[in-house]
């Protein structure tokens, strides 16, 4: 039973039918099998948050989920969110406010921030900090990241009808 198991899933809108070993986690599956390397692997035990992806619309730790558990699921990675333009304004705000330096945490930080803004259109700074509390950044000191998320929320609220 340690043999490969076949799975079918949807990744960024594309159907993927393949087979994987049970021990393969979702982050490594995305990076090594599908070459979607925007999902980063830091601590591999759920602490750093760098591997955050969306599964059926909800953010999860890709290092704490087996690829076989993603059978039948719909996965969205930073490549999907970036290509669709869903977070173009958030990405621009990160650039404008220097909310990244080395960039290692950035894809997951964007996933977590967009997840917050979908549930809470205009969060206060405390709510932003709380929602991003599971994502480590070792460069910025977080201040600029909170600024960028706050600015994006306000700009979107102004644009909303």
């Amino acid at each position, binding site marked *: *039973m*340690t043999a490969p*198991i076949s799975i079918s899933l949807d990744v960024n809108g594309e159907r993927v039918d393949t087979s994987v*070993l*049970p*021990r393969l*986690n979702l982050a*490594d599956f995305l990076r090594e099998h599908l070459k979607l390397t925007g999902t980063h692997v830091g601590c*591999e*035990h*759920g602490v750093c*948050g760098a591997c*955050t992806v969306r*599964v059926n619309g*909800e*953010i*999860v*730790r890709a*290092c*704490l*989920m*087996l690829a*076989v*558990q993603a059978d039948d699921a719909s996965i969205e990675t930073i490549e999907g969110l970036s290509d669709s333009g869903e977070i173009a304004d958030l990405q621009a705000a990160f650039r404008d406010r220097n909310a990244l330096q080395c960039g290692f945490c950035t894809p997951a930080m964007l996933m*977590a921030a967009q*997840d*917050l803004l979908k549930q809470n259109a205009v969060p206060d700074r405390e709510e932003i*900090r*709380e*929602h991003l*509390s*599971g*994502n480590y950044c070792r460069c910025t000191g977080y201040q600029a990241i909170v600024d960028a998320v706050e600015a994006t929320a306000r700009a979107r609220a102004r644009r909303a009808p």
Partner: protein
Amino acid sequence: MKASAFAYARATSVENALELLADQGDLAKILSGGQSLMPAMNLRLISPELVIDIGGLAELRGIGVKDGILIIGALTRHVDLLKSPEIAAHAPLLSDAIAHVAHPAIRNRGTIGGSLAHADPASELPACMLALAATIIVRGPGGERRIGAKEFFTGIYETALSPRELLVAVELPVASASSSHFFHEFARRHGDYAIVGLAAQAVVKDGRFADLRLGFFAIGDRPMLADAAGKLVDVTVTPAALSEALSLLADELDPQEDHQATPAMRRHLAKVLLTRCVAALLSRPELDAGAVA
């Protein structure tokens, strides 16, 4: 690190999961949300030969209320508890506590059954089960067993669950209208495992505790219902009575030393929490002024 190789089986029913467990026993591990199991496997703290995935068993998911009892299926996720109007109405302590369990991405997959069966002594939910007088329901080859929360947690990552049993649900008495609760924990980062925490459930009548259940966590090898509560029930809580309860608490705790805190620091923080809890629940802020030296 990555998990070592294992075989994987997707359970099709509770019976099927129990059959797989009966075959493999302690060589197998149950996978529900994976938020405790996967880190342990990635760190190679455990290397099961078979992982039995119960994630698809809808029968184990959901929250119900019947005859004054709140029933929570083992696969109910933290995010489901956080958003549940039934939990907010009937076990508000749990709603408060869940907000401190890890981070949104983890709460989207972690389950109550997984957290309780994993039994990390620093985690929030086991202490809540003690404070709320929960009954843990497990199923095995011999049928169903109902285990009181106090008997369920037996040590670090150890429970009364046998390797051939599956935790299927939790039952909690519906909180009475006159009850109140307190939850607080000290942690380095919001959502991290606590350095020390307290989940308390109380009934306050005429300015006195008619009932007080103090579930401390991260203070020993398992969560503990503190006997210090006995010093505070059915008495007028004076600073002297509180101070007596605090010294009893310091004596009954057996905190461990780790990279986060010494036993002395944990004892101190536990006393701070008890003081704040009593002051908050009795609405007597003056009790929290200088009680802990």
